């Protein structure tokens, strides 16, 4: 009997462990993170007053872990991705991440109490690549759809593209990135990205 009890205890622990390991569904994740970030901003006088560094800090902490910047960078570079060395890829991911976080901060800073409409997820439980649809409602205008493309990874669902009003962010970078790679190689792209980031940082300090 003690053996059976031990086995039972082991089974229970394993079941509970598996329970805890279960990933937050992508639509729930998007809703949680969106509402949490928006309410944190609403409460923060400094961020509302235009403290960009603090807003970026908040994004780094709350939003960043749910993005897959490797996928985003690869998709944005398209056919140029394979021309990059592992070292170059690392630099592109780093610079692109900085730029996207800053863009995201800009978008959030212009948020002013619009209402969200979180739409139910249309996907099978077995899907590993889904789109989560959110709509931002605004008076007197068509709602703006924000669609998150997400993929299932071992560490949870990760966003690999954001579409705003039908415009895919990573697709929109593709022509720019490929033009730069064609003109001056992957290093040229890295140089341009980091120059852009430094210029924006400089503008923030002013």
């Amino acid at each position, binding site marked *: 009997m003690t053996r059976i009890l031990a086995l039972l205890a082991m089974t229970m622990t394993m079941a509970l462990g598996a329970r805890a390991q279960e990933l937050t569904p992508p639509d729930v994740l998007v809703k949680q993170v969106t509402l949490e970030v928006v309410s944190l901003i609403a409460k923060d006088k400094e961020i509302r007053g235009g403290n960009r560094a603090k807003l970026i800090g908040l994004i780094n902490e709350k939003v960043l872990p749910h993005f897959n910047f490797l996928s985003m960078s690869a998709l944005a570079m398209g056919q140029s991705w394979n021309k990059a060395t592992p070292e170059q890829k690392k630099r592109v991911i780093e610079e692109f991440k900085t730029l996207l976080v*800053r863009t995201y901060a800009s978008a959030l800073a212009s948020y002013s109490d619009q209402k969200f409409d979180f739409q139910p997820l249309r996907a099978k439980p077995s899907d590993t690549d889904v789109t989560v649809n959110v709509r931002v409602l605004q*008076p007197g205008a068509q709602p703006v759809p924000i669609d998150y493309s997400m993929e299932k990874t071992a560490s949870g669902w990760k966003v690999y593209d954001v579409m705003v009003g*039908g*415009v895919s962010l990573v697709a929109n*970078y*593709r022509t*720019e990135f490929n033009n730069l790679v*064609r003109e001056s190689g992957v290093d040229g792209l890295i140089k341009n990205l980091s120059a852009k980031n430094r210029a924006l940082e400089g503008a923030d300090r002013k």
Partner: protein
Amino acid sequence: MKWLCVALATLLTGCATTNGDARDPLEGLNRKVYAFNDKVDSWVLRPVATGYRDWVPGELRDRVRNFFGNIADPLIGVNNMLQGKFEDGFLDWMRFGFNSTFGLFGLHDIASDMGYEKHNEDFGQTFGRWGAGTGPYLVLPLLGSSNVRDGLGSALDFYFDPLGEVRPYRVEYGLWATRVVQTRADLLDASRILEEASLDKYVFQRDAYLQRRRSLIHDGQPPRERDVDTIPPEESK
């Protein structure tokens, strides 16, 4: 005639400096118009729109936006019907009816509050639905991003614009100016984000426009592109 020669010369020299994007054969010329538009915007339109946003209370700006949104709904409805979406078209006219009466001449968008959402349609989208290709990308003076199809569509939109029938002229022009400033003011945040996010503003805006129009023609559900790296043949079904 002289003007034509200059335009042609600009066009030809312009073509020599493009990146060779198949969707944008007139890139050289387009970039020049874009630079001109950008100047007009930063010297006139953006400062006026910024002043409007900063000095006019949000409540009043909402009324202005609703008013112009409302008078646009009938034509949106017609376009929905031309595309075979009769139910949507009917709802647009219903919105117009409700908002013009209970919404006090469209100052209040009560139809949206009741769950009848505003649509986004125009002749360019209708032509797209009918299967027309976009033609080359164009940057129109003052009007900005367009293409041959949407440019023709805009001409029709303009022809049917209810503001065109407003008299006396000074009232008509006053309403036009107000609408332009209101529209620009609503885009202030988006244009700032565009400045910050892009490495080459021209390319970023062009690609966003092309993606946006493609999405609108399919009412937000464009068919998936077969390969992310290939440029889609213009809206082929």
